């Protein structure tokens, strides 16, 4: 598990999502990266049931249950600013049992699918973010395998991102922010994905009625 940066690639003007993805992948292949299969990251939203709220206050918290094909036997559960739980795949079965406490938000499943490229120590994943049948955006994830401390290798990652994203290079992710010497873990990647999905959900508000 190395330091990962997840960012969004805006769709090029006059082109569809698919074409932009193709542009990116062609750039990567010219760079010399080799294709290594596909990847998938998906996210489901749950909110705490109204019955458990009681006197506490207005809205319940949102919980996100995510899966990542990079960690095929794990399941991630996280709250917005809260802790992230890494569990076995039996967690999904557990969620069914907890139907009384957590209710699935309608039409909330969002996922990104794409190809996985390996370029020496870098692992690049370019995926199409889809919600239902429609494609909403493009996610780009770059992982630098050898390093586990974010502050040490951010500059290297930035340089690499610039080489093929060009002007769309993002800034340092918020998960890097506070802890400079903390070891990077898979939970941080999932937090970044969650933020990305939320951002994409908010972008196109017209077709989707009230997520909450």
């Amino acid at each position: 598990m190395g330091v990962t940066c997840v960012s969004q690639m805006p769709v090029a003007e006059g082109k569809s999502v698919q074409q932009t993805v193709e542009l990116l992948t062609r750039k990567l292949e010219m760079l010399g990266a080799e294709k290594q299969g596909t990847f998938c990251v998906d996210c489901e939203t749950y909110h705490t049931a109204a019955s458990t709220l009681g006197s506490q206050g207005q809205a319940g918290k949102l919980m996100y249950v995510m899966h990542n094909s990079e960690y095929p036997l794990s399941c991630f559960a996280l709250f917005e600013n809260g802790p992230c739980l890494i569990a076995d795949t039996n967690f999904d079965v557990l969620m069914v049992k907890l139907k009384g406490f957590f209710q699935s938000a309608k039409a909330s499943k969002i996922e990104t699918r794409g190809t996985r490229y390996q370029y020496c120590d870098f692992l690049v994943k370019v995926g199409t973010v889809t919600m239902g049948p429609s494609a909403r955006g493009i996610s780009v994830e770059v992982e630098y395998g050898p390093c586990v401390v974010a502050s040490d290798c951010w500059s290297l990652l930035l340089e690499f991102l610039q080489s093929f994203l060009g002007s769309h290079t993002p800034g340092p992710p918020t998960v890097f922010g506070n802890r400079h010497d903390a070891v990077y873990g898979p939970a941080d990647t999932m937090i970044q994905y969650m933020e990305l999905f939320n951002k994409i959900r908010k972008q196109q508000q017209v077709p989707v009625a009230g997520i909450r």
Partner: protein
Amino acid sequence: MSGVRAVRISIESACEKQVQEVGLDGTETYLQPLSMSQNLARLAQRIDFSQGSGSEEDEAAGPDGDAQDWAGAGAEQDDEEGLVKFQPSLWPWDSVRNNLRSALTEMCVLYDVLSIVRDKKFMTLDPVSQDALPPKQSPQTLQLISKKKSLAGAAQILLKGAERLTKSVTENQENKLQRDFNSELLRLRQHWKLRKVGDKILGDLSYRSAGSLFPHHGTFEVIKNTDIDLDKKIPEDYCPLDVQIPSDLEGSAYIKVSIQKQAPDIGDLGTVNLFKRPLPKSKPGSPHWQTKLEAAQNVLLCKEIFAQLSREAVQIKSQIPHIVVKNQIISQPFPSLQLSISLCHSSNDKKSQKCATEKPGPEDHLYVLEHNLHLLIREFHKQTLSSIVMPHPASAPFGHKRMRLSGPQAFDKNEINSIQSTEGLLEKIIKQAKHIFLRSRTAATIDSLASRIEDPQIQAHWSNINDVYESSVKVLITSQGYEQICKSIQLQLNIGVEQVRVVHRDGRVITLSHQEQELQDFLLSQMSQHQVHAVQQLAKVMGWQVLSFSNHVGLGPIESIGNASAITVASPSGDYAISVRNGPESGSKIMVQFPRNQCKDLPKSDVLQDSKWSHLRGPFKEVQWNKMEGRNFVYKMELLMSALSPCLL
């Protein structure tokens, strides 16, 4: 006595009459006392008139004793006393009076003593401390006697029992040949697991308790051997116990692994001759059921191994698919090489014994791989019982301990693959077979080269310790007699599963494939390079100077194997030079350069004015190397060099 008052005493006659008989109701019939005449008659009878006065005194003592017994007798007694006694002063009541008087005296003394003691002034009564023993002695002896009696009774019972036991022991020793069913069953229980189901005794000879997952039940039944004729003599190997093994585990089995060079026709598949290997000798003391059960267990294990191998052969996808036919699995590890694993199960029928006439060749049977198969399946058994797997939480599936953590710790695919061993039994055995084959072929190549080529010599030092998948050998190419000088070609060969990796002394690493021709070509090229290196080392020793040296010359005819190498050395005086070109195929070519003044056929010209120019080296002449003296190349070279260096005389 004088002041004592007179005491009145009353005397009463006993009036006792002798009892004649006691009636049944207790009434007594008395004898009537003798009348006077009867008494007189009795007394008269006693008198012995023949004797003197001595006898009369005796007689008097006798009746006198009688009279005194009758105290207070009647008148008849008075008469009698008067008759016999000669002391007239004694009156009949004298003795009575004396007795009474003494009694009175005693009583008075007693009375005086008591009255004095009562005052407690001059005399006191003190109790005498008496031991409790004396009165109790009699109860102790009584206890002792009773204890002795009871102990004797208990001892009697024990002795009776001991007698019975000794009798039975001697009986057993007598009938040692005729062993008891129960004692035999006890022996069986020491080796095998038995359980009682209803009225049958069943046993388990499968490996399930050792971790096997093979679905065979592996139960055998223990039966009593009752077909014994007690009248006839009991045979030597009679056993009251017999085991009945399942019918499909009868006979003996083994797994045969063999490598054949040529691929047979498809029609020949599945026609493996079952060679009945002689049964392994059982220990001399073990009973026949032990050998029977062990053989059945071996058959079960072989079946499990073969079932696992055939399952993997069908499931696992490989480039060249494995063929499973009847009791044989055929795969091709290398092209033109065939590996066949077969299960040879021969039952104890007489039919199959006749067919076993063919004996396999010694190289055909790879015993090492068969042994390894047994070890691998046992390892697989142990894995299901190892501490990595057990104990496990109730909700977790059966598997490796780290796999349960792969979810919560977010393992990625590399880490998951490293935990799971993806290689099955068949793949492991094929890899081992490939390695064995490659190793033997490499050894054969080196040996054939060594026997074919004498100059230079090849030495191979094989390492003792090697892996199932890797062996190593160190190959040295030397010239005989010059090992210390010419040791620049040393190769370390690491023989793996499919490739041979060569590490040269100068640091080059070359990977050769499984083709033996590649290794042979490589070694030949190294041998030719060695000759030229040897010349270089020799020149250093002899004092000759190396003018040029090249491992791979680009001039001259092209070699098909490797490259030719060449060297030019000059003599210490500079007069002569030797030029050597050696190639793996073209052999060696040696030319000597002479100084100009030694060549007669040089054209004279006017350009050279000075005579000093004639000392320079001029044309080359080839040496007929095969006519040179010397047993090998370096020796010949040394002779040539010494011949061309003039000795200073």
